[in-house]
C-alpha cells in the first residue's frame, strides 16, 4: 500500500486522526480499493468511528502492491497521533505526506516532506489484524437531523465548558432547541425522565433555539429530545414529556456519545454537514459526515431503556399517565432520575465486563447490536434493604443518590411531605456537595 497526501489534505488527515484519537487507543488502517479506511473502537466497545478517504483524496493511491495481498494493520493510536501531533505545524511546514505499508519490513512508514527540504520518516511497528467493522446502517434510522457543522458548533459554543449536559430537542414549531440541562426544572422541560449523574444545579440556564430553516434535513417529530453530556461527551435521546401525546409513540433512547466533539470540529474545519441518525432505544446512533473525498461515521451504542429493570418500567408507566402538573410528580420524578443514572452506570460496567474476556485483541467484527441488557447487579439489592428503613426513600435508589435521600429524609420527613417543594432544596445541597 502506498499513498501520497499533499497540501491542505495533510491537515485534513491529521484532523481525522485527532478526532479518532478521542475514541480509541488503537487505530485500524485498512487500504481498500475504494479508499483508505481508518477505524477505531473504544475500549468498552460502545463507540466506533471510521473515516474512509477516497482515492481522489490522495495525489497517488495504491491499495495493494501488484502481486501482493492487501494488507491491513493495527497500530497504537498514540504513535500514529505523534506523527500528526501539531496541526499548526502540519499546516505551516508539511508539504506532503507519504504513507506506505510494507509487508517485508513490517513497518508502517509515514514520511513527511517539510519546508527547507527537511524530511521526517516514522517507521511505526504494527500488528496484523482482522478487519474492524461495526454493523450499522444509517438508512434504517427513522430520525435524521442534518445541519452544517458550523451551525452545530456555534450552537454549542455558548455553553460553559464545565457544563455536564446539554439537551437537544425538537420543540414547538419544529425549532431545534439546545439548553443546558438541569435536573430540577421549575416548569416541565424536555427531561423529566433523566438527570445527569452529577446533577449540580447551575445558576444559569443557557438556551439556544435554531429554526428549522438552518437545518438541511429535519426528519423527526416534535418532542424528540437528546441530551448531550458536553463534558463527558455523552448523548442521550429521550422522549419529551412536554408533549405527552407523543410520549408512548416516541423513541426513547439513551446514547453514549463520546466523540461528538471530535467529529464536530473535524466537520467544521472541513466545512461539512453533520447528520445525526437515530432510532429506538438500544439502537445505535450514527453521526455521519460525507463529501466526495471522504466520509466519516461515528457509531455509538445506545442504552435500551425498555429493557432495563422493572422499577424503571414501572416508573415509566407512572409518567405516561396524563399528568395534572409538574408539582404532582416531584417524587416519582426524582426516583426516575435515580434509576436512569443507575442504568447509565451499570451499562458502562456491563460493556466493560462483557468485553473484558475479549481484551484488546482484534475482533473480526464488532456489533453494536440493539438491546444492551442491563445487568442484574446485586448491589442495588442490598441498597434496597437499607432504603426500606428510610420512609422517604424509594427502593432501588443507587448509592450516590442515597446519601441525599437519607439526608433529606431525616431532616424533612417530620415537617414536610416528600411531595412538597423539598426536592428542589435537595438538589441545591447536592450541587454544593
Amino acid at each position, binding site marked *: 500500500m502506498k499513498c501520497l497526501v499533499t497540501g491542505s489534505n495533510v491537515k485534513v488527515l491529521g484532523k481525522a486522526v485527532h478526532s479518532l484519537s478521542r475514541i480509541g487507543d488503537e487505530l485500524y488502517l485498512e487500504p481498500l480499493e475504494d479508499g483508505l479506511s481508518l477505524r477505531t473502537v473504544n475500549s468498552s466497545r460502545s463507540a466506533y468511528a471510521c473515516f474512509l478517504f477516497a482515492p481522489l483524496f490522495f495525489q497517488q493511491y495504491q491499495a495493494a502492491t501488484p502481486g501482493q495481498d492487501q494488507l491491513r494493520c493495527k497500530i497504537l493510536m498514540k504513535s500514529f497521533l505523534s506523527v500528526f501531533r501539531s496541526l499548526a505545524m502540519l499546516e505551516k511546514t508539511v508539504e506532503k505526506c507519504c504513507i506506505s505499508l510494507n509487508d517485508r519490513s513490517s513497518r508502517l512508514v509515514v514520511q513527511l516532506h517539510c519546508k527547507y527540504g*527537511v524530511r521526517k520518516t516514522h517507521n511505526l511497528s504494527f500488528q496484523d489484524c482482522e478487519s474492524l467493522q461495526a454493523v450499522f446502517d444509517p438508512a434504517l434510522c427513522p430520525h435524521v437531523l442534518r445541519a452544517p457543522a458550523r451551525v452545530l458548533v456555534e450552537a454549542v459554543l455558548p455553553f460553559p465548558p464545565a457544563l455536564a449536559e446539554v439537551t437537544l430537542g425538537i420543540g414547538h414549531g419544529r425549532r431545534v432547541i439546545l439548553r443546558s440541562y438541569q435536573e430540577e426544572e421549575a416548569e416541565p422541560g424536555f427531561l423529566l425522565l433523566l438527570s445527569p449523574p452529577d446533577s449540580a444545579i447551575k445558576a444559569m440556564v443557557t438556551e439556544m433555539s435554531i429554526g428549522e430553516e438552518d437545518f438541511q434535513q429535519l426528519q423527526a417529530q416534535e418532542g424528540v429530545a437528546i441530551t448531550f453530556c458536553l463534558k463527558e461527551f455523552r448523548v442521550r435521546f429521550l422522549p419529551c414529556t412536554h408533549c405527552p401525546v407523543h410520549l408512548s409513540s416516541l423513541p426513547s433512547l439513551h446514547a453514549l456519545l463520546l466523540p461528538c466533539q471530535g467529529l464536530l470540529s473535524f466537520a467544521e474545519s472541513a466545512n461539512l454537514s453533520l447528520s445525526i441518525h437515530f432510532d429506538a432505544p438500544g439502537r445505535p446512533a450514527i453521526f455521519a459526515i460525507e463529501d466526495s473525498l471522504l466520509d466519516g461515521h461515528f457509531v455509538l451504542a445506545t442504552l435500551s431503556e425498555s429493557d432495563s429493570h422493572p422499577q424503571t418500567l414501572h416508573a415509566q408507566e407512572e409518567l405516561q399517565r396524563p399528568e395534572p402538573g409538574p408539582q404532582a410528580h416531584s417524587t416519582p420524578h426524582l426516583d426516575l432520575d435515580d434509576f436512569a443514572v443507575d442504568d447509565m452506570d451499570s451499562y458502562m460496567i456491563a460493556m466493560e465486563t462483557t468485553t473484558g474476556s475479549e481484551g484488546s485483541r482484534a475482533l473480526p467484527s464488532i456489533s453494536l447490536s440493539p438491546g444492551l441488557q442491563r445487568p442484574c447487579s446485586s448491589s442495588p439489592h442490598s441498597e434496597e434493604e437499607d432504603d426500606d428503613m428510610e420512609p422517604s426513600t424509594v427502593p432501588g435508589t443507587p448509592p450516590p443518590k442515597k446519601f441525599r435521600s437519607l439526608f433529606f429524609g431525616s431532616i424533612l420527613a417530620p415537617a414536610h411531605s416528600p411531595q412538597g417543594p423539598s426536592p428542589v432544596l435537595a438538589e441545591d445541597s447536592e450541587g454544593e456537595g
Partner: protein
Amino acid sequence: MPLLTQRIPDENDYCLVASLDNVRNLSTILKAIHFREHATCFATKNGIKVTVENAKCVQANAFIQAGIFQEFRVQEESVTFRINLTVLLDCLSIFGSSPVPVFVSIAGTFTALRMCYQGYGYPLMLFLEEGGVVTVCKINTQEPEETLDFDFCSTNVINKIILQSEGLREAFSELDMTSEVLQITMSPDKPYFRLSTFGNAGSSHLDYPKDSDLMELFHCNETQVNRYKISLLKPSTKALVLSCKVSIRTDNRGFLSLQYMIRNEDGQICFVEYYCCPDEEVPDS
C-alpha cells in the same frame, strides 16, 4: 564569620563587581543552562562563564562577556565560586521575569543589577533596583568543584554544521522521549545530517539536506554515527529555544559540541555551549 561582619565593605574590597542595566540580559542566558541545581562561576576580565554539569557526561557553559555589563571589574586573575543556580535565578527575577510591556517601556522600568563578590567564603551580593525600590540579596557561595574538561579541540573536529535554530527547535520539542538515545548522523554523503530516535512505537528519522536554506554551513569530512543519551540532550532545548543559530560539531572521539548563539534584548550576542559524550560505539554498517 563573613555574614556577621559589621563593617560595610569598601568598593575595593570586592574582587568582582558587575553592573547591568537590564538584569534579563543575564537571567535569560542562565535559564538556558538551568537543568541542575548548582553551577560553578568563573570570572575573568573577559567576562563570566557559568558551568552546569550532569552525570559526568554533559556540560553546559554560558558565557556572559564583559561587554554585556555596563560595569565589570575583576581584581584578581580569576574568581571562582559555586552557587545555587535556582536561588540565583529566583533572586534575579525578584521583580518579576516577564518582559516589560511596550507601552510602559520607558527608561527605568528595567530591573538593574549590581553584583558584588568579596572573595572566597563570602556571599554573592546582589543589589536589584526597579523603579526606585532596591532589593539586596546575599547568596551563600560554596566550595568550587572541579569541572570536567572535555578536551574538545577544534583541530580534532571532524564534522561541523551550522543550522538556523528554527529548523531544529521543532525537532527537539517533538523528540520521542520513549527512545533512550538520540542518534546523530553527519556525513558528506546522504543522508548528510540525520537525527534518529528508536522508541516504543518504532523509529523515526529526521533528515536535513545539505543544501537546505536552514543550513548555514556544512563541513562534513567523514561519516559519523553517534548516539547520545536523550535525557542528557533534552535540557539543551532551553538554549535552543532562545537561540537564533546553532553550531553542531563532533570530534574524532564522537564527542558532541552544541553551540547556541543567543541574541539578548539589546541585540548583543551571547553563547551557550553544550558538550556531551557519546553513549556507546555504534558498529559501522
